[in-house]
């Protein structure tokens, strides 16, 4: 299921879980569900409170200087390097892309590397950017047999569309673990393993409309992009939209109501891949915060055969 290029690259144990500020702020269930799944399959991971945000949201908005981004992430790499669980695993594609970009720049630019190492020296940290950077969906794909072996539920009869985060597929586009950047298959292959019917739609690779600052400062970008995205999704008629990005789930979930006036009702639940997999492994909906979703997930839960969340 993994591309040949990803075989052997995706680590099968010892994960340093890298927390996301959007997931932790808006959908804490994403991270709870990740730990639930990893506990079920019995792998070693660290949930280290010391790492900072990767600053990716601010960096891509253009309000975080490159020098600060590099130094804070060199510190984050250093923490992972000093941990027994060294393989960084992100829940957020922006963390994934940004950490990889920091590593890339620091590996190629001697001047920035020296300055960044100097900053770390001043705060008493070793400069070590050796830990690998991975996304949790790749881990699920690499450990899919172990995960499906623990499955107590099925997605048989469920129609879904997938939306992969742009910062997973388009920055380091050669590193997509399954399929390619135009047609990533990471989420598709995980959901199919539980019997899910993945349906196609024309705007698969279109951005979720977040645009970083756009989603906080104006609505033109999110609304124009999402009208196009949702119209295409709705034509496919899925029961659920599956994502791998906390920012994408935020946008796809929070704008459905305000767009109903211009394109009609949408009301399609949006689930992050860890929430879906945790459900398959027996997690209770409220235990993984599904009652915090904006578009209610009860209809989908009932189709899967799970009692819905209380409002």
């Amino acid at each position, binding site marked *: 299921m993994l591309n040949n290029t990803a075989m052997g690259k995706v680590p099968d144990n010892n994960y340093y879980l890298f*927390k996301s*500020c*959007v*997931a*932790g702020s808006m959908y*804490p*269930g994403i991270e*709870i569900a990740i730990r639930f799944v990893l506990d079920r399959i019995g792998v070693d991971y660290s949930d280290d*409170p*010391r790492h*900072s*945000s990767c*600053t*990716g949201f*601010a960096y891509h*908005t*253009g*309000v*975080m*200087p*490159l*020098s*600060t981004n590099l*130094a*804070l992430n060199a*510190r984050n790499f250093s923490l992972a390097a000093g941990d027994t669980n060294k393989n960084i695993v992100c829940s957020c594609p922006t963390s994934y892309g940004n950490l990889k970009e920091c590593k890339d720049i620091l590996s190629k*630019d001697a001047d*920035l590397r020296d300055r960044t190492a100097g*900053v770390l020296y*001043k*705060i*008493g940290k070793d400069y070590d950017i050796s830990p690998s950077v991975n996304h949790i969906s790749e881990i699920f794909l690499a450990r899919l047999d172990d995960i499906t072996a623990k499955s107590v539920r099925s997605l048989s009869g469920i129609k879904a569309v997938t939306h992969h985060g742009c*910062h997973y597929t*388009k*920055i380091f*586009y050669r590193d997509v673990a399954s399929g390619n950047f135009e047609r990533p298959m990471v989420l598709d292959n995980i959901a199919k393993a539980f019997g899910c019917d993945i349906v196609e739609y024309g705007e698969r690779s279109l*951005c979720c*409309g977040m645009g*970083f*600052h*756009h*989603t*906080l*400062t*104006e*609505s*033109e*970008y999110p609304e*124009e*992009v999402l009208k*196009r995205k949702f119209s295409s999704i709705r034509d496919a008629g899925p029961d659920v939209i599956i994502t791998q990005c906390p920012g994408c789930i*935020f946008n796809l979930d*929070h*704008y*459905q*109501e*305000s767009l109903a006036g211009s394109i009609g009702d949408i009301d399609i639940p949006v689930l992050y891949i860890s929430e879906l997999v945790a459900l398959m492994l027996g997690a209770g909906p409220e235990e993984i*915060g599904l009652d*915090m979703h*904006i578009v209610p997930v009860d209809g989908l839960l009932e189709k899967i055969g799970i009692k819905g969340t209380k409002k």
Partner: protein
Amino acid sequence: MTPEVGRGTRISLAKKYASPDDVRIRSSGYEKCLQCGRCTASCPAAYAFGDYAPRDIMRRLSLGEIGELARSEDIWKCGQCYSCHARCPRNNSAGLAILALREYALKHGIAPESIKRLASLIKNNLYDKGEILLPSTFAQNGRDKVGPRTYARYLENLDKRVKLGYCRDDARKVPIPEESMAEIRAIIDLTYAGE
């Protein structure tokens, strides 16, 4: 000195015009840009705004219009999705160059006011909690923007997160320890002004 143009000689505008010494502009590939337009055809911001084109950003970079670009609203229209980068036949990245232009604009005080306000809010979040976005940050997306049901659910979620064991006003279950926050603040102090 103008290079002699003939067979086998590539025209490069890079030597003629200076651009800020930023690795992201240097590696954006603007000198290699063919002006083919695949980036603009792929760009959600070009679709959303109609008057924005990453191809034009690359053209203006090659003409050395750094100051004009930094003052322009255009660089804030990009949504940073990197479709331009993924689809470029020459592996260029307009989105990457835009990051350098945005940093340059903010440093010289010529970014839009809404961006300056967001920069200040985000820097405070980072200095205070080591996080860029906090649960309260999204309150900016008021009821008018997201609709009444969505806004009501968002407000309820501020309580629901506590039931899941997460902090009410932090993106974490366990806040970043004070010793780590001291390191994070020292890094910001040492680097944020761009040294």
